[in-house]
């Protein structure tokens, strides 16, 4: 009996144990790694009837819907079991690793809780990228199939996934085009990618090359580097035109990639059949910086018309008609064709006749950018309207460029045109506007040329004006005039008295006679000599003493001389000399030589001149 109770008691316990073992409260998610903006579901399941379900705090997630409660009941062999599920649809907000905490529920008065779940949130992938990733994955599988190399074991991602920045040349002239390509090399499965930082291309004019057939599709190809095959694609291709000289560094480009790494399953069979799970890992991939050595264009031989064109070009011009009427439009086209920095060319400034109205040119580009650089044609179309009749010339245009192949500047000249403009039906009198004319004038004009005449260069600080010489010369004229006035006055005063003038001139006349006498003396013509001396003395005394020639005799001379206080001996000597000369004219004299007589007469005149 006792045993019976024991057995019963044991069985009773057993059922409780069975029952207790059966209650399970679990949490599960449909994925552990989600992208931002990607929905996932968290489900909390209990295989019993629970009450007071408390959901965890979903920090870092947004609840899209939930709790969605589901209940089910099954009865098997009379044993009924029920389960309830509480599910939430969540969307992560930010990248990172989050933990969904435990949820609690009370079953039969006992509180149960779930274990926390870790969720890794990565940056969300767009649908297009997801597609690309899928495509990529297929490719990857192909490679694997061909080669048998299984990617993903190597943790050295740098060897499996990298970006190369390739330039077709590292030395270039200013304006010379070069191609920069960013290529992605990968041997791993990529789930998603995102551009973090595009490289700065400071110092360059950059032109992106767009793939001709389908710009959005990613073109993959296989390339082998050191025996390892890579899937390669162009991320970005640019044509660069250096704008300044020097060593210009192109910064690296940074991209984020999500790589799906396979985690080998614990089950070797599973592994064998390609099973197993994977982890998505994010890597930041940087390309290496590139240095471009930019050289300035050579200065020697640079033509005046050069405006920065580098490459190889040809220029042509055309007009749609050469005969037209005034006020009719005329199209003038400049076509630049070639390879080089076409888009960077400055508009040309052709010279049109002033009587033509000129409008801004229409620029038509048919330029293709590809790996070989920029090439094509650029057409400038000028609309011209001649306003007056006549014959006008459109001058040829000079265009020059630097030819990289030959390393020289090449100048080209287009042909000019002669336009015959007939008088229009309604020729208006609009002349070209003054302002326009002025502009043109100033554009073409340079400063005046230097002066080549250096004759007026002086070292004076002051110059002629204000110098002493200036004042002296200025005063010279008036001074000369004043001097002349004074001179004239004195002259007139001296000449107003005839007697005084006579007496002043007496000495001169006497000297004349004596000079003549001297000439006779040397000729030894004695009578004439004495006559001259006599005349000289008499004439002198007549002028000096103001005695008329008729009154002139010894007595008169003596009285006049005495009246002028001449001393007695001089008077006597004078009279003796006069007598001697008078006599000597007719008869020879002795006792005195002619020379002595001459000296005597001379002394006499000198004496009288001194005293009177």
């Amino acid at each position, binding site marked *: 009996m006792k045993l019976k109770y024991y057995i019963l008691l044991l069985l009773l316990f057993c059922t409780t144990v069975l029952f207790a073992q059966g209650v399970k409260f679990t949490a599960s998610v449909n994925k552990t790694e989600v992208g931002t903006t990607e929905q996932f579901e968290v489900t909390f399941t209990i295989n019993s009837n629970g009450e007071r379900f408390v959901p965890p705090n979903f920090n870092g997630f947004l609840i899209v819907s939930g709790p969605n409660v589901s209940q089910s009941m099954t009865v098997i062999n009379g044993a009924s079991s029920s389960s309830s599920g509480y599910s939430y649809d969540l969307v992560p907000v930010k990248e990172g690793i989050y933990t969904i905490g435990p949820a609690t529920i009370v079953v039969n008065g006992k509180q149960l809780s779930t274990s926390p779940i870790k969720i890794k949130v990565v940056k969300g992938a767009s649908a297009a990228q997801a597609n690309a990733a899928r495509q990529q994955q297929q490719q990857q599988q192909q490679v694997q199939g061909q080669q048998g190399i299984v990617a993903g074991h190597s943790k050295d991602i740098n060897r499996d996934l990298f970006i190369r920045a390739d330039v077709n040349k590292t030395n270039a002239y200013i304006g010379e085009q070069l191609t920069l390509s960013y290529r992605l090399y990968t041997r791993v499965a990529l789930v998603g990618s995102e551009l973090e930082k595009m490289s700065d291309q400071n110092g360059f004019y950059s032109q992106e090359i767009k793939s001709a057939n389908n710009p959005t599709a990613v073109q993959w190809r296989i390339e082998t580097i050191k025996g390892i095959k890579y899937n390669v694609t162009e991320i970005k291709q640019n044509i660069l035109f250096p704008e300044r000289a020097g060593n210009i560094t192109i910064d690296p480009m940074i991209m984020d990639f999500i790589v799906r790494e396979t985690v080998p399953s614990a089950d070797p069979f599973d592994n064998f059949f390609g099973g197993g799970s994977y982890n998505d890992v994010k890597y930041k991939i940087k390309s290496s910086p590139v240095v471009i050595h930019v050289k300035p264009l050579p200065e020697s031989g640079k033509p005046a018309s050069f405006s920065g064109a580098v490459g190889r070009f040809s220029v042509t011009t055309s007009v749609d008609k050469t005969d037209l009427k005034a006020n009719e439009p005329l199209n003038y086209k400049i076509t630049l064709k070639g390879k080089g920095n076409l888009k960077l060319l400055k508009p040309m400034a052709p010279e049109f006749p002033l009587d033509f109205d000129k409008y801004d040119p229409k620029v038509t580009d048919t330029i293709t950018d590809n790996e070989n650089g920029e090439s094509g044609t650029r057409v400038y179309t000028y609309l011209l309207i001649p306003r007056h009749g006549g014959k006008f010339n459109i001058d040829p245009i000079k265009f020059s460029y630097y030819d990289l192949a030959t390393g020289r500047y090449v100048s080209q000249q287009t042909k000019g045109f002669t336009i015959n403009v007939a008088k229009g039906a309604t020729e208006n009198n609009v002349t070209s506007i003054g302002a326009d004319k002025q502009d043109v004038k*100033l554009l073409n*004009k*340079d*400063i*005046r*040329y*230097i*002066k*080549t*005449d*250096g*004759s*007026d*260069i*002086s*070292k*004076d*600080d002051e*110059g*002629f*004006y*204000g110098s002493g*010489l*200036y004042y002296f*010369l*200025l005063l*010279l*004229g*008036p001074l*000369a*005039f004043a001097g*002349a*006035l004074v001179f*004239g006055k004195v002259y007139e005063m001296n000449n107003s008295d005839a007697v005084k003038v006579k007496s002043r001139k007496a000495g001169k006349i006497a000297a004349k006679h004596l000079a003549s006498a001297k000439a006779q003396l040397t000729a030894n013509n004695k009578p004439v000599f004495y006559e001259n001396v006599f005349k000289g003395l008499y004439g002198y005394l007549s002028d000096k003493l103001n005695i008329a020639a008729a009154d002139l005799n010894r007595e008169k001379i003596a009285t006049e001389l005495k009246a002028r206080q001449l001393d007695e001996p001089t008077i006597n000597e004078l009279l003796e000399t006069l007598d001697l000369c008078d006599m000597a004219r007719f008869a020879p004299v002795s006792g005195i030589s002619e020379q002595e007589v001459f000296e005597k007469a001379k002394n006499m005149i000198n004496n009288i001149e001194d005293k009177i």
Partner: protein
Amino acid sequence: MLKRLIYLLLLIVAPLLAFSNDAGPAMFKKGNNLYQKANYKDAAAAYQKMVDDGYQSAGLYFNLGNAYYKTGDIAPALLYYEKAHRLSPGDEDIRVNIQFANSKTTDKIEAVPEFFITKWWTGFILAFPASTLAVFSVLLFIGASGLLILYRFSGAVIVKKISFYSAILLLLPGIGTIFISGRQAAYFDAHHDGIIFNSSVNVKNAPSGTAKNGFVLHEGTKVSILDKNASWIKIKLANGNEGWVGAADVREI
């Protein structure tokens, strides 16, 4: 009398021609050749050396200004153009080039419009260089004096009449040229101008470093100099603004 006049003329003309064959003009020719070969830097150096050696003429200053203009030094270009303009105020080449150089300066200053009679009068007194006027006045005075002397000593009535009236005719323009050259000298005495030589100059409201900045001027701007002391110069702009700048920032024309 005629002989004496010829001697006087020689006396006047000789000093004006005296410098035509010394070292200066040789250097001037060298500068011109360099300029012609577009070697503007060396041309400027050659002209500058002549100026530093004390040579001067409107042509020399003008060429030096041109050389500086071509090398892109606008401030010295303007300084020497203005110096040339002082020596030869009526020269059109100089005026045109001053306009060109001014168009390259930063500051655009609207000048207060001048009364038209003042403008004409200034143009009239500045039409010929003072040295030319001086030579004319000396020649006219000497000519007039000579004619007056002839009038004084001549016997014939007709000669007396002609010489007297022509002397008066010469004397009047003689006095006129002296007057104009005097006005010209007075004009330049009253108008002390300067060129800003620093790329950016703060114009102060008072002659002290701590004074407030009134306005900013840039290289090449022409200013009138009103007052000066050891380290400050009082300037006035064409639009009437006044202020003080450091003595090193302005060079007087």
